[in-house]
């Protein structure tokens, strides 16, 4: 498992653009979820651990998603390490996937978790509307960065045929 087991020049190494993007997308989702948990739940204490208005289906989906994020974080990093080990990582695609993942999670959290399932609000005791707007706009921005990077990588990929 150590690096010395794998020679630096792997004969027949083939770049895997699609896999690079998907794997880094998974990491992006999981990293954003971790940021949400650490910054908003733990450091700022804005989000509540449990909100009385939560629906029970919300509680179930929260439990599933929370666990899935943890597993995705671990799986993502090991899949990434595997791509690196096989010299198959395509960095442009990887960055595009990472930003798409970040944006997707942020938007999902802002719309489904906060608004539809009402797991918790961004902050309590204040008018939450501007916070919701800032939250979802930030998510949209991250998503757009991901889309732009993916389109550019796609164009580049066609010309360079990789």
């Amino acid at each position, binding site marked *: 498992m150590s690096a010395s087991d794998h020679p630096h020049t792997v004969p027949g190494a083939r770049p895997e653009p699609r896999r690079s993007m998907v794997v880094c997308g998974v990491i992006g989702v999981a990293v954003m979820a971790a940021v949400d948990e650490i910054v908003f739940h733990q450091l700022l204490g804005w989000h509540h651990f*449990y909100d009385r208005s939560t629906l029970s289906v919300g509680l179930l989906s929260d*439990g599933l998603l929370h666990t899935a994020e943890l*597993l995705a974080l671990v799986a993502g990093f*090991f899949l990434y390490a595997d791509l690196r080990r096989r010299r198959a990582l395509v960095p442009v695609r990887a960055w595009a996937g990472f930003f798409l993942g970040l944006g997707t999670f942020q938007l999902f959290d802002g719309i489904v978790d906060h608004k539809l399932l009402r797991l918790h609000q961004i902050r309590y005791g204040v008018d939450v509307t501007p916070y919701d707007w800032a939250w979802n706009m930030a998510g949209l921005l991250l998503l757009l960065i991901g889309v732009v990077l993916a389109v550019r990588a796609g164009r580049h990929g066609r010309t360079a045929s990789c």
Partner: protein
Amino acid sequence: MLIIAHAHPGPATGPGLVELATAALALLVAAVYLVAAARLRRRGDAWPWWRDVSFTAGGAGVAWAAVGELPGGPFSAHMVQHLIVGMAAPLLLVLARPLTLALRVLKPGAARRGLLACAHSRTAGVLVFPPLAALLDVGGLWLLYGTDLFEAMQHEPRLHAAVHAHVLAAGLLFSFAVCQLDPVRRRWSLFLRGATLLAAGAAHAVLAKNLYAAAPPGTAFTTPDLHTGAQVMYYGGDLIELALAVALAVQWYATTGRAHARQTTAPVMSSARRPA
């Protein structure tokens, strides 16, 4: 275990006989492991040192949970105990591959044959089916915190001991089935084990949030104590899930790495195999 310290915060009577016996047994098992591992190494076998550390930490964890002073209010302390006995210690014990060690160190004879027959028995095969192990583990917790069982065990030392024995046994079974490090009758795919971990983790998280909102029936813990306990369960469960996920991922990484090395260095090295 610990019923005196937990249920009645009145006179401090210290650990009872059952607690002391549990702690002594846990430490004895750890000592046996260390002796066996040392014997293996003297013989020339490779046995990584971190397995000794892991097993000893697991045994010490059980001992400490049995007789030690645990922090926080009664419910938080119970949760810390639950985390150690039901999750952390079982994982540490399982990661040390005790069955593999026993099979390697025992001389051919009745004991070794018996152990092997037990490991390869149909019953063991059914029990280590990951979804069943998860159901026994997390299902037991739902029963404990969702029914009157929790209240009843506070007044019934034998029930208390039985519940904790179940928590430890089910935790061992679950970690054993998900990690699948020791040789058993049947191997299950990484996908099934990962999906089981996901389902069990989700059920554990939902149970922790339910406890945050409502205490086990019939109990009267203070709200701050209940909230701390529920969050200890939630985030402590996260840590163990992360560790289990890393254990699975390391297996996958090593297996694919070997397959990759075989492909890229073939045909000269194709017959060279490294021990798992």
